[in-house]
């Protein structure tokens, strides 16, 4: 008789791991929730004070009529794009390694688009004016189309989050009943709509997820294009560049994937998901970042180069301020810290470690926020009549509101995963089943070749059966899709 020597998490543990935040959130869960909620509450108080005192209290003035809040809208809605599109593209291309990441990526997409959209309220100054978008819309205004695009994309993100969740709610329902969590079990039961995983249900669900995955990609592109056109229809130098729509889209993907890396790392750590999400996942996400980082750098050069040589007065003044003037320090910090360094970290094999990838991802998100501040504040500050620049300074109010938005991301995700499975249980199990069949076929052919049902893995004393190899390898498949090939090569 042989024994399985694998230390990989068996498939049976998957359901437990996926439901861990629901059943065992940990001692520090509520502490983290309280701290994050306090930061969010502080931001809301700051916003209420701003409503009372006026936008000037957030540093806005005659020159800086657009500033930090619109940069936050672009940043937060942008990072949402990364979660949704990464998940959609990986689903459509059938990348099986995506399975442990999709739930976190999709939840991140929903949470960040809602937070990003909410920054419109402090940006408006007078929040009641938001209602005018509904009862007195100006159909020729890009702000109206921003509202349409963001709300459509937000709804699509919610549907895209919910549909793959549906089978897992059915799975989770059984566990909730076992643990006596009847109230949540009833909600799970209701929300899973009698899912039992039969072939027709799977076909219907997979077809619908595929349709939404296809739909969400152009939707996300449209959201960021329309956001860029909101700038181009405002009379400021640099905001009319035709490259801005694709520039915004690439920036959104770049920063969005970086945020997915950070969020996945955070939840992997706090919910001990190392058996399912390993270094290979981070490396692959990091490798996806490389072309987007390189493309963003290229678009930055393409954006600045012609205007810096033959631009009109306003454009030349703003570009001079950005490249060699008052914003130069921050701009070059973005170029090196947000583009060159992260791309090098992800591209060079010897720097592709989880720690360095996280540093790279954090640099990308921080730098791209900085870049958006420069893109907003620089041209807004430029006086078209005088040719002089005004000034804009962050205030405690604008910083508090922005920090509240940042804190709201982990806070909402902690709350979401307190009630839904953090891993895509059914999807992961389906992938394991599929890969198991393939591996069984592969190993059977090897067995036929060796004429033996026992295979030695290096040490002759460690002989294990084919079925156990299949099982262990299939479990490993959750963590790495190439482990099968490694096992087969060893055999």
């Amino acid at each position, binding site marked *: 008789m042989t024994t399985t020597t694998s230390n990989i998490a068996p498939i049976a543990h998957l359901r437990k791991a996926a439901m861990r935040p629901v059943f065992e959130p940990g001692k520090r869960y509520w502490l983290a929730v309280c701290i994050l909620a306090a930061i969010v509450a502080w931001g809301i108080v700051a916003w209420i004070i701003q409503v009372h005192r006026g936008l000037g209290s957030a540093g806005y003035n005659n020159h800086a009529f657009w500033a930090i809040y619109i940069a936050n809208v672009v940043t937060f809605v942008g990072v949402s794009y990364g979660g949704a599109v990464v998940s959609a593209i990986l689903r459509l291309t059938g990348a099986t390694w995506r399975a442990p990441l999709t739930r976190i990526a999709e939840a991140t997409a929903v949470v960040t688009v809602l937070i990003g959209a909410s920054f419109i309220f402090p940006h408006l100054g007078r929040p009641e004016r938001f209602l005018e978008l509904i009862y007195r819309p100006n159909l020729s205004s890009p702000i109206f189309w921003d509202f349409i695009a963001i709300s459509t994309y937000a709804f699509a993100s919610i549907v895209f989050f919910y*549909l793959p969740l*549906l089978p897992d709610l059915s799975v989770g329902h059984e566990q909730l009943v076992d643990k006596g969590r009847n109230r949540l079990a009833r909600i799970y039961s209701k929300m899973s709509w009698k899912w039992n995983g*039969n072939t*027709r249900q799977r076909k219907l669900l997979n077809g619908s997820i595929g349709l*939404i995955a296809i739909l969400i990609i152009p939707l996300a592109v449209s959201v960021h294009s329309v956001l860029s056109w909101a700038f181009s229809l405002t009379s400021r130098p640099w905001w009319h560049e035709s490259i801005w729509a694709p520039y915004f889209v690439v920036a959104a993907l770049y920063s969005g994937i970086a945020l997915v890396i950070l969020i996945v790392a955070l939840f992997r750590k706090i919910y001990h998901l190392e058996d399912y999400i390993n270094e290979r996942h981070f490396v692959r996400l990091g490798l996806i970042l490389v072309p987007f980082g390189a493309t963003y750098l290229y678009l930055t050069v393409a954006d600045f180069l012609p205007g810096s040589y033959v631009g009109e007065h306003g454009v030349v003044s703003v570009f001079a301020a950005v490249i060699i003037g008052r914003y130069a320090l921050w701009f070059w910090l973005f170029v090196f810290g947000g583009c060159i360094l992260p791309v090098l970290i992800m591209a060079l094999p010897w720097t592709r470690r989880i720690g360095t990838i996280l540093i790279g991802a954090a640099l990308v998100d921080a730098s791209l926020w900085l870049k958006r501040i420069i893109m907003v504040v620089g041209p807004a500050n430029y006086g078209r009549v005088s040719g002089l620049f005004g000034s804009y300074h962050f205030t405690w109010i604008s910083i508090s509101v922005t920090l509240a938005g940042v804190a709201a991301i982990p806070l909402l995700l902690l709350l979401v995963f307190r009630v839904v499975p953090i891993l895509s249980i059914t999807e992961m199990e389906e992938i394991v089943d599929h890969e198991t069949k393939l591996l069984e076929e592969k190993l059977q052919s090897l067995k036929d070749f060796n004429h033996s049902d026992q295979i030695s893995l290096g040490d002759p004393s460690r002989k294990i059966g084919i079925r156990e190899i299949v099982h262990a390898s299939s479990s490993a498949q959750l963590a790495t899709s190439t482990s099968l090939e490694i096992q087969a090569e060893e055999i």
Partner: protein
Amino acid sequence: MSRLSQYIVATFLLASLSLVSLASMDSAFAQVVASPLTLNVTQPASTSDTLTLAASLPSNTSLNSPIHFYVTTKLFGGKHLVPIGVSSLNDGTASITYKPTWDGTQSFTATVVDPKTGATQITANASYDVISSKPAVSFANANQKNPLSHFGKGFIVALLIIVAAVWVTLLTTLFRVVRGMSKLAP
């Protein structure tokens, strides 16, 4: 008298009182317009030139508060006054300079607070036609229309149809899954 009737009578009285007070406010305002303050706009101007606004008070007046100048605009919705400067009286005259930012007839208002009453503003109005500056060379395609302007409403309608189609797709997909799951369950 029932409680409801009492409420109706009270509301009626309150509304009547409000109307009376509004009417009295209106007549007070009418008195203010007939003021000793005069406002002159000098120097021909195009949008890039500077106007001088001079507000004067008769020498025998006791008013010596600063004069506030406003321009009337319909920008940002509704007709309202936008402050453009404050100047103190010097020999009975206060003046400011102002660069018009759009052409056409512009209405200016000068106000001064009567120190006796404290709250009453004595107002003077003046209008000036600002001529748009014209280039020395006429531009051949000055009247060229925006190429997309031909689409007009049709373009917006097309966009709205696309958005509606996306929403219908999302909602029907969701509905199909929700209904199909229950239907396909054994």
